[in-house]
């Protein structure tokens, strides 16, 4: 499925998909998931050396 934000015409040359993940929406979700994983990793990192 092509990720086309509202008002963004199909076939516009500057409306290319990202090089990975296929659609921009997936790329955005991946970045937010990465942020959640990073915060969790920091929390675990601090916890690991707190004892």
């Amino acid at each position, binding site marked *: 499925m092509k990720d086309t*934000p509202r008002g*963004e015409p199909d076939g516009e*040359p*500057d*409306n*290319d*998909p*990202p*090089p990975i993940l296929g659609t*921009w929406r997936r*790329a*955005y979700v991946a*970045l*937010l998931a*990465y*942020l959640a994983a*990073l*915060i969790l990793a*920091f*929390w675990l*990192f*601090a916890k690991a*050396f*707190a*004892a």
Partner: protein
Amino acid sequence: MRPLDWAVLTVSLAFIVIYGLWRGRGSSTVNQYLLAGKTMPWYAMALSIMATQASAITFISTTGQSYVDGMRFVQFYFGLPVAMVVIAAVAAPIFHRSGVYTAYEYLERRFDAKTRALVSAIFLIQRGLAVSVALYAPAIVLTVILGWPDRVTTLVMGSLVVLYTTFGGIKAVTWTDFQQMLIMMAGLFTALALAVLRLPADVSFADALALVSAAGKLNPVVTQFDWNDRYNLWSGLFGGMFLALAYFGCDQSQVQRYLTGRSIAQSRLSLLFNGVAKIPMQFLILLTGAMVLVFYTFEKPPMVFHKAEMEWLAGGAHTDVAARHEAAFEKRKESARRLIEARHGGDAARTATRREEFRGAQREMESARREALDRVAQAGRQRKGFNDTNHIFLTFVLGHLPAGVVGLILAAIFAAAMSTISAEINSLATVSVIDLYKRFVRRDGEDRHYLNASRAATVFWGAYAVMTAQFGAGLGSLIEAVNMLGSLFYGGLLGVFALAFFFPRIGGTAAFAGVLAGEAAIFAAHSFTGIAFLWYNVLGCLVVILGAHAWALTFDGRRGTAAA
């Protein structure tokens, strides 16, 4: 500074300037000079965005902040990836398609000329103040190393930046940012690696992290919420997101980076890359500061890291505080040894006891340092609440790292400073010419005329930055000063762009009134409450939106239309 350090530093600076001049050649139209003819690839924009944000302050002050306050400052960036998603999805396509030179030019198309002028003026005031701080920070470096007066260092730094920025415009700025970011990363990894390698042989990296934790500094995630606390998970996620939305979405010094992209996709990629790389980079910088703390747990640190003030303390009647500091250092060092032994022994209860001992010793150490700093302030040599945060990392680098590496790290600091300053004077010149001069003074000039005006404005803002950088000494921890300064204005900027993007029925006069109301609310909060500055962005943005709607309902509604 040894000859090898001078060689590395000089070659690096010369290369930056020559590379900038070479890359910037051929900028013979306004479009090429200010937008690089919209030809930039995503990776150049991505590193330029990161380099613009990572100033010398990032190296000098963030490492020191980690030493003093721990790693919780990393939370300040937690909202950044969310902001990158919003800007990539909403702002970047709108700016690209509208074909504007500046974000504020778009505001006239959406609202009216007075809103554009007001927001441009806010940007010029806010970024004009920030560029002075960005130039002053590296002046600290040379003042500490060479004892050069601030005026000389700011003049040299400013002249180098103005040279390639004036000649090559944004192409020179972006490609030198790219190269400067690589130098910064080399300096950062080298500093971190050497900080760890300089620890005593029997102290492992894991031991070092345990000491940082016991000192209360391994705190990258603080989940307790407090309105007055600057850095916790919630202020970072929400306050930091609003600040990042304002900085990357409304501040011309950043918007201009991704306006140069050859397509929307390239601009989006550059923003998302920033969202991926920024937090780990800040984490590594803070970790470097934390390792410096561990290093100075085993190697006696100066009582005060500011060289001149330390000499004053050593030469005066302050033997009591010096003795107290010495005793606290020995006690902390001994406590650290005992804690490491307990860890290696695997006895959890004993380790917990040793951690408490070490934490107590750390508090004593901090108390002795605070007393020494207060004495400097009480003697009238520095302002009340004086701190030496900005001198900690440099003291470590200059005193304990090998020849060549000192030059590399100084080159990284200069690269960071130059990347920020060049982007700032480039964007200040762009807004001055496009949003004010071309719009309100001379509307029908030739392209060549505006190109020359842009070059003249670049020289003007460079000269302005050099002159006003003299006031940097009174600003305390520089990174906080810059971020707080931004927060006084960013709420208003963010609010008006939120109106532009998401509230199509709001017109120009309502938006104008909303911005004034938002700024009034921020300055009132700053003057009369203790709310942490990160929340100013949220407050300002909300007041702008509510104020504009109130105006529209009260005045525009009577005329039967929302548009003013």
